[in-house]
């Protein structure tokens, strides 16, 4: 297992390095960050001063070399726009995104799996058909639109929750998060729901498919032949089996919840990393874009690793590469 993990981490470093190359040069091709930064009043001399101050007058290879040198010491450069270290900016915004992502995952599991279970066990009931139809909407409706609709309904019309923003922070077991306060919960509810919609639909469909498949398998028939209660058959025998694909997929999707919750964060003015990223892209704040994507890649690799380990725990037939027999 240790060898397996080490090997994975080394692969991670390689991927992160390649990502940094791609993004660094890619952002360069999009446009010139200088014009995004200097005030229009600036004359030619000011613009040139800005260019040299940002190091943009050097050849791109040299710029990348300097970046690597700094990266080896943990310095991923300073944001062109904020002047602060890119890494610090991202880490500062990370907790907000993490709590949103976890909340969305929580909703997806707590709403999606039970609904999918029901739809799988009673596929012909009206409720099941309704659930499946709703899941299609979950896939097809654009997050942007749904978010605004949620705000219009729950915040403007019903005035049950605030429209935008993050709530007060609370502390629990040394972790600071807005989900530990009532105010925070009222703020996170809509964006978490908005973000979770796609994942809920996915969970519903995955769980239902898993249940449909499992119910027809011999071990279910055998369990019934042993006289086990339906409850035990579903929640022990079936669940343990379908959890494998569900956990795998949801785990991988979690990566995108963290990295790309851009639309939800923008609509709900949620101060997370996603919004930081999109602003950085639009304004060609290259250090932030590069740092962000490198971190996200690391996250993805880490999540993949955890999912693989979880998989091997859930399914005893699976051995991880490099494990002894």
């Amino acid at each position, binding site marked *: 297992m240790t060898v397996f993990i080490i090997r994975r981490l080394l692969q991670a470093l390689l991927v992160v390095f390649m990502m940094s190359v791609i993004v660094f040069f890619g952002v360069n091709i999009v446009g010139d960050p200088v014009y995004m930064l200097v005030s229009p009043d600036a004359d030619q001399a000011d613009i040139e001063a800005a260019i040299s101050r940002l190091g943009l007058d050097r050849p791109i290879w040299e710029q990348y070399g300097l970046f690597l040198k700094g990266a080896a010491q943990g310095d991923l450069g300073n944001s062109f726009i904020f002047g602060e270290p890119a890494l610090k900016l991202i880490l500062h915004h990370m907790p907000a995104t993490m709590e949103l992502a976890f909340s969305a995952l929580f909703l997806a599991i707590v709403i999606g799996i039970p609904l999918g279970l029901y739809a799988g066990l009673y596929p012909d009931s009206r409720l099941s058909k309704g659930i499946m139809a709703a899941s299609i909407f979950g896939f097809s409706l654009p997050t942007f639109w749904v978010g605004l609709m949620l705000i219009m309904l729950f915040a403007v019309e019903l005035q049950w929750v605030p429209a935008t923003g993050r709530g007060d922070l609370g502390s629990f077991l040394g972790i600071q998060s807005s989900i530990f306060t009532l105010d925070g919960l009222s703020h996170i509810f809509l964006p978490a729901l908005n973000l979770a919609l796609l994942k809920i639909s996915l969970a519903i469909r995955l769980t239902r498919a898993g249940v449909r498949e499992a119910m027809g*398998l*011999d*071990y279910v*028939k*055998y*369990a*019934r*032949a*042993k*006289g*086990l*209660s339906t409850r*035990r058959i579903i929640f*022990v*025998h079936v669940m*343990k*089996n379908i959890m*494998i694909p569900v956990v795998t997929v949801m785990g991988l999707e979690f990566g995108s919840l963290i990295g790309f919750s851009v639309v939800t964060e923008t609509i709900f003015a949620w101060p997370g990393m996603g919004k930081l990223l999109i602003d950085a892209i639009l304004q060609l704040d290259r250090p932030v874009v590069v740092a962000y994507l490198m971190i996200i890649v690391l996250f993805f690799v880490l999540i993949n690793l955890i999912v693989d380990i979880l998989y091997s725990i*859930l*399914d*005893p*037939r699976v051995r991880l590469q490099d494990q002894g027999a």
Partner: protein
Amino acid sequence: MSAVLEVSGLKTHFFTHAGVVKAVDGVDFTVSKGEIMGLVGESGSGKSITGFSIIGLIDAPGRIVEGSIKFNGEEIANAKEERLQSLRGNRISMIFQDPMMTLNPVLRVDTQMIEAILAHESVSKQTAWERSRDALGLVGIPSPEERLRAYPHQLSGGMRQRVAIATAFLNRPDLIIADEPTTALDVTIQAQIIHEAQKLTRQTGTAMIWITHDLAVVAGLAERISVMYAGRIVEQGGIDDVIDRPLHPYTVGLLGSVPTANRRGKRLFQIEGMTPNMLDLPKGCAFGPRCHARTDACGLQPPIEDIDGRSLRCFNPQRAAEAVK
């Protein structure tokens, strides 16, 4: 001896889109306490369905349309699910064909054995565990504690089937239905399993229905034999009697096609024709189209006749016996 199981006029039909499949269409037999009955037939003859009907595991689109199944005098055909659940794994057990498919791959052996006990009796987990361990010892498994901790895929085929057998005996049932339990195993293991099963039934006085397509298996094991063809029992009687003097043309053909050392050099006997299409059975005797002894009378369904302790559905039994010689 008292009858543990009395089946009369059992009809289990499947209502599919393509038509009605009369998988079991008029089956009668009785199993006495401690008796082993062999239920023999080719694939599609309805023998497994008969077994499932008894234990009440016929699912849509099939159902028991007619007939009676009396277990210890109690009518259980189409009984309430709760009643059936309390009987299954408790008073009537089932052993399936392929233990790799029937044991849940993600649960340990001990889990799957203990739950069979706890579903019907409130004992402590420790007690249930000890009983499971003892049961494994009984079927000849060495170091049963280790096997208990294992997952199904870590055991060999023969071992798994022994676990299945042990599980079937756990709650001292009155009847065990074994559906092709040795078909998936190699010959040497087969012999061992059959031996264990025989030993256990003798020890515990459990009745057993041994479903198989292999006459040779049943010959050394069962006391009575029922031969099924196209959903009906065509011949039934004491094992030695039927094997020495088969009356139904199908039975004759079955016996004839068993390769034995005595017939070395001679061409293997084949029953002409193909297994019937259950959706489109011929009028009259279903075996008619393949029968050497066919006469015009066979255009009608032959009724059951009792001759010297033998039950038979045939208009022309004598002639069939002669034809083969």
